């Protein structure tokens, strides 16, 4: 016992002025400290190399395609398999439409669910329901895609899509034959996938609103719902916005499930019931068969476009989240 203690006693302080902490001495002078510092820096360096390598290697692999068609690669609308040209513009539009459908469906339901779980439900109900939704968030996207393709798609073709075509004003969005696989189905499947994300993040945002705000509203005579509407939701607004943006990032970048249910059509969709394609589904469908050279490079070009869009959205979401954390006063 005492021997080990003796071994651990540090060498005498080398700093000439008492009380001055010599950083070099503290961190580097002792052998244990040096190995430990090298370990930490190795971890950080590997991570930095991976992040930079991700961007650089994708750009390098796509450079041939961008060199071939220049920036017009970004809004090309024609598909020409023999010339290795992909309609990036159509894919971008498809990605935006499916994501928009998912957001329109998932945000009101998700925020409503979060408000109920965080503010209105009794504790015995809110706890288990929250755990259930968190667990379901772990369901792999391929399983959601399989369910969308084999279960939801026939239901959409037989019941949902014919029904939507009968609604007076909305029918403008829903003309054309009802196949099942469509932009609408892809958006719905995406909505199912992003719902748990929206619920979990919004719930955290709502729960972090100061209880003084709730009590103040209550003291002014607000009903329980008015407390939620006038005090809690406005207080959590930035957090809810961040939740929506991060969920949007997930919907934009989803590939496998979408490629199963969207119908994979390289034409501009004329209706939400038409089959289409997104950046993610196009990458999955074309990467395997793409020939080495320009063809492969073009598909990797699609990946670069997708990466750029999702990175922008995610950076926006993270900045919002950080602003909120600073406002709440958390440290990390």
């Amino acid at each position: 016992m005492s021997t080990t203690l003796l071994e651990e006693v540090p060498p005498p302080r080398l700093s000439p002025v008492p009380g001055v902490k010599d950083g070099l001495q503290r961190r580097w002078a002792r052998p244990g400290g040096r190995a430990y510092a090298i370990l930490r820096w190795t971890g950080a360096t590997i991570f930095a190399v991976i992040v930079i390598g991700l961007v650089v290697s994708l750009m390098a692999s796509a450079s041939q395609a961008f060199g071939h068609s220049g920036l017009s690669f970004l809004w090309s609308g024609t598909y020409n398999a023999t010339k290795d040209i992909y309609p990036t513009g159509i894919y971008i539009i498809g990605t935006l439409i499916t994501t928009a459908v998912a957001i329109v469906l998932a945000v009101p339901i998700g925020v409503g669910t979060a408000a109920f779980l965080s503010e209105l439900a009794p504790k015995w109900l809110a706890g288990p329901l929250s755990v259930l939704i968190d667990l379901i968030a772990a369901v792999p996207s391929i399983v959601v895609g399989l369910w969308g393709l084999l279960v939801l798609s026939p239901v959409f073709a037989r019941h949902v899509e014919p029904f939507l075509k009968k609604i007076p004003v909305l029918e403008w969005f829903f003309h054309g034959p009802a196949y099942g696989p469509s932009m609408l189905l892809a958006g719905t499947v995406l909505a199912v996938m992003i719902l748990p994300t929206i619920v979990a993040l919004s719930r955290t945002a709502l729960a972090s609103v100061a209880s003084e705000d709730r009590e103040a509203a209550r003291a002014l005579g607000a009903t329980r719902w008015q407390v939620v509407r006038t005090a809690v939701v406005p207080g959590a607004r930035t957090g809810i916005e961040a939740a929506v943006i991060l969920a949007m990032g997930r919907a934009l970048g989803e590939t496998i499930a979408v490629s199963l249910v969207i119908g994979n059509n390289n034409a501009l969709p004329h209706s939400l019931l038409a089959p289409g394609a997104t950046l993610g589904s196009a990458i999955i469908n074309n990467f395997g068969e793409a020939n080495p050279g320009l063809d492969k490079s073009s598909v990797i070009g699609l990946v670069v476009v997708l990466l750029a869009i999702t990175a922008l959205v995610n950076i926006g979401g993270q900045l919002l989240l950080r602003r909120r954390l600073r406002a709440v006063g958390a440290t990390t």
Partner: protein
Amino acid sequence: MSLTVLPAGSGDFTDAIGTRRELVRESARRSLARRRIAGRIAIALCMVAVAISLAPLVALVAYTTSRGIRVLSWSFLTHVPTPPGIPGGGISSAIVGSVIIVGLAAVIAVPVGTMCALFLVERRGRLAGAIRFGADVLTGVPSIALGIFAYAVLIGPGSLIGHFSGLAGSFALAVLMLPIVIRASEAAMRSVPRDLWEAGLALGVRRSRVVRSVVLRGALPGLVTGNLLAVARAVGETAPLFVTVLGASLLVTNPLQPMGALSLTIFNNANQALPAAQQLAWGTAFVLLVLVLVLSVVARLVSARLNRQARR
């Protein structure tokens, strides 16, 4: 400026106040009733939202279970797939492939992630902030991009391995797991009270020793939870494996060769019209679902225990 002063005790005066009070009371009553009804409607709508958000998710899990459980048997888990048209066959190659690929990914991601988390815990300032931000943004990068990254570095022309392989898939999944491991480990280490660090350092113990026996030990449940959640996320991924591992129906244990994987088996069979292929897909989906849910539940139990200990 003239004030009409009413004589004290006059009937008009008390009546005026009384009527006004009545009016105020009446309007308050009406307002409260209106607000209560509005509140009830809004709360009912929120309950409907809860029902709508639970319905598809519960339906999905229930349907996969009911279809998958019919397919599941001992031979389904222990046999390799048969060619189309021949009955029998199972997913042993996919199970073995998934375990090896994800295992190797964890072997890469857990040490690197933990080291990186130590860096974040020990250092403040711009560099640490940048790495933290990078990890948060990387969490949202589409997994297909990570797969293509692994393809470009390890498989494509002029790269390290040169052909499709399980190891390339492990690399892609490791990149996917890294930000999750880093952020969860950092949070776990920060939850170890600062006093314990300082107590260790005040004893004159080396910093590395304090980290090993105080910080890492104290943060252990949190580290386990974070790593399990990262593994659960990686097991279910399909897109990065699709472009790196390729899939194999024979039992392959060499990670330098193309391998099978659970998610790839589902993807490759989902689109086929053959009932046998769809059955195989549902059975595999059920196995994958159980695996992921078990990992998530265990992760949650570990962190729940941690919370109980912290409160004590």
